[in-house]
């Protein structure tokens, strides 16, 4: 009896789901014009140009009246330019956005409502990592949608581990294992691990792993003053200043840790799934590097998740086509192109397998497994302001100029005052 009830519930669910899916294609096509349309597409990643162009070409092949023009701006200038073009009402129709800047644009009416994107694509919402999708929802409205996502893993150099006779890291590692291994790996020529002043690769992982938060759930209060957060900061600081198993801040600022890792000067780094392409291109790391899930802190496994949002200008003259393009990009076709080329980890599930296969030398599955421990990328309405404070205080932490407790208290104070005046 119970089984039958279960079965009927499933059947009903299936019918409801399929009818939803079936009813959707008729709605958007109604407003799409067949006149020639040109869409401007702004983005910041030069190593994604090839894939982005392929997607634009595939879209043009499917809808010959629509041409997509790519506009590349280096990341350092991207948001300056974006804001100026928004002020001049000259935003690209479709553009990349990140979680840090998203709310500023969403709150000020710059972005078009994209509705239920998975439904419009004709796939299930569960085909996308929810934490990455939620980053681009503001007051319950989906103003952008991630085309990819990234989590962070522990990359290690097998050759250096073999040489030092240290066992490879596993997904069960904790901070203490990292410290112990790094101490064995450190020689006059090699550092055990490369600690970098980088929010995504380091700070936003070790803080929740310690049991703290960067920002409260309502985005009104800093979490840096809490004991859990301080544990995370202490771990970072200790690797550099106490155990001296990491290059100094001066060194990692002048030569990126990924570069040091790529030339065998550093045995382990925390780096994102987005590092895979570069480490795969480098012959040395392709042969010697591998990756596992980040080691757990006192509060267990946690990994920050982020994805590049695809936003549509509210003032675009072709909003319907722009929506269609975003759906194409984040849907099966866009995911396939991004995955096959190994460009980035697509947000759409079916594309993820292709990304794994594109670089079989690495155990990239680690990045997918981490989604269950995802910590959403901390942000707020005007996040760049307190992120500047974050950088400032972390400099004091990593040079050893201040203790974790001082840095946490000072940063919490500055961040709270910034959050209090946000949007006023």
């Amino acid at each position: 009896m119970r089984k039958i009830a279960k079965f009927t519930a499933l059947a009903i669910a299936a019918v409801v789901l399929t009818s939803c899916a079936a009813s959707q294609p008729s709605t958007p096509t109604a407003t799409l014009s067949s006149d020639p349309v040109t869409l401007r597409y702004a983005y910041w990643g030069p190593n994604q140009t090839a894939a982005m162009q392929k997607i634009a070409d595939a879209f043009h092949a499917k809808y010959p009246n629509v041409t997509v023009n790519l506009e590349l701006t280096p990341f350092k200038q991207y948001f300056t330019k974006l804001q100026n073009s928004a002020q001049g009402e000259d935003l690209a129709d479709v553009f990349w956005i990140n979680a840090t800047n998203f709310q500023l644009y969403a709150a000020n009416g710059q972005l078009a409502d994209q509705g239920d994107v998975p439904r419009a694509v004709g796939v299930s919402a569960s085909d996308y990592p929810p934490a990455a999708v939620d980053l681009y929802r503001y007051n319950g409205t989906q103003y952008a949608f991630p085309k990819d996502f990234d989590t962070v893993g522990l990359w290690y150099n097998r050759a250096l581990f073999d040489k030092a006779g240290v066992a490879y890291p596993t997904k069960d590692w904790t901070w203490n294992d990292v410290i112990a291994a790094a101490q064995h790996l450190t020689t006059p020529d090699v550092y055990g691990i490369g600690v970098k002043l980088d929010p995504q690769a380091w700070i936003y992982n070790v803080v929740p792993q310690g049991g703290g938060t960067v920002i409260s759930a309502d985005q009104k209060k800093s979490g840096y003053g809490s004991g859990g957060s301080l544990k995370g900061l202490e771990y970072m600081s200790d690797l550099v200043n106490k155990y001296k198993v990491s290059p100094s801040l001066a060194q990692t600022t002048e030569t990126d840790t990924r570069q040091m890792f790529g030339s065998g000067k550093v045995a382990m780094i925390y780096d994102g799934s987005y590092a895979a392409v570069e480490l795969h291109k480098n012959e040395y790391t392709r042969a010697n590097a591998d990756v596992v899930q980040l080691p757990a802190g006192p509060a267990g496994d946690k990994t920050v998740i982020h994805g590049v949002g695809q936003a549509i200008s509210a003032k675009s003259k072709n909003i319907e086509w722009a929506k269609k393009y975003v759906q194409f990009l984040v849907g099966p076709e866009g995911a396939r192109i991004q995955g096959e080329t190994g460009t980035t980890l697509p947000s759409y599930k079916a594309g993820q397998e292709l990304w794994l296969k594109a670089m079989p030398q690495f155990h990239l599955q680690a990045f997918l497994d981490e989604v269950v421990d995802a910590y959403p990328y901390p942000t707020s309405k005007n996040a760049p302001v307190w992120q500047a404070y974050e950088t400032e205080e972390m400099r004091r932490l990593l040079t050893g100029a201040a203790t974790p407790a001082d840095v946490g208290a000072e940063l919490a104070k500055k961040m709270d005052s910034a959050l209090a005046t946000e949007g006023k």
Partner: protein
Amino acid sequence: MNTHSGLAAGRSRSPRSFSARKVMSIRQGEIMWGYILIAPTVIGLGVFYLWPVVQTLYISMTKQGPFGGSSWVGISNFERLATPEFGQSLLNTLGYTAIVVFLGVPVATVLAAMLSTTKLRFRVFYRAAFFIPVITLPAAIGVLWRWIYNTDYGILNQILRFFGLNGSSWISDPNIALYSIAMVGVWMTVGYNIVIIAAGIQEVPAWYHEAAMLDGAGAVRRFFSITLSAISPTLFFVTVLAMIKALQVFDIVYLMVGDTSPAFDRVKPIVYYFYQSGFIENDKGFAAAVAIVLFILIASLTGVQFWIQKKWVQR
């Protein structure tokens, strides 16, 4: 005489009144043409320089919304400048400027004098070599020097190590980064200064030197007693320009020292502070206040120079 003048007067009576009018109209025409000819410059100056100055002053008294819209806040943006952070960036800028001017201009003067000696071989080559940094993109200069100064892999430390010296973290050590950057500032401006100063040196009449030589003055004596005083107007011009440019330093710092560098606080110049407030933290009203303060600083330091030049510039 009389007849002559009467004749002349009679002959020229009607033409004279005619020509007076004509002169007047020619005069007016000239004035009008004068205005027409300077119009493009004046309009350009007004639209692209003076009007933005007025606007910036206005913006500095407002709070700007991220996508337009503003509210009047009076002088509160200026009050907010009273922070140690702004004070430090002011100090950084002045330190950089002092080095670039007080080291850069004398070095350029000596080099220009040396390049002006006719006996020197490959003169044109040296001039070109010194001028190359001037025509090189600041971005390329920043990247190049960043590499030269790199603690672990930079060529400077490798050379020092070859001589058994330890080297340093040139652009990351808070105590020396500003000097390292100022050296690049000197290097990239010295070529321009040399060209201007060398032109000044060439204007010095050769017989000054000949007379001095007859009196037994050597090259060094002649440089200090003749060349230096004769080119003082040129030196003044170069000093003023070098100072204004140095006070506006941004690009090489932006390219050589990132915001994660331990030395960042000790090298961040005012223009970087302006950039950070206006374009990263979206506080454009405050950024405008920073720009106004820099404007006043440049104007007053230039004013001081014009006042001091009366004491040392020969005319």
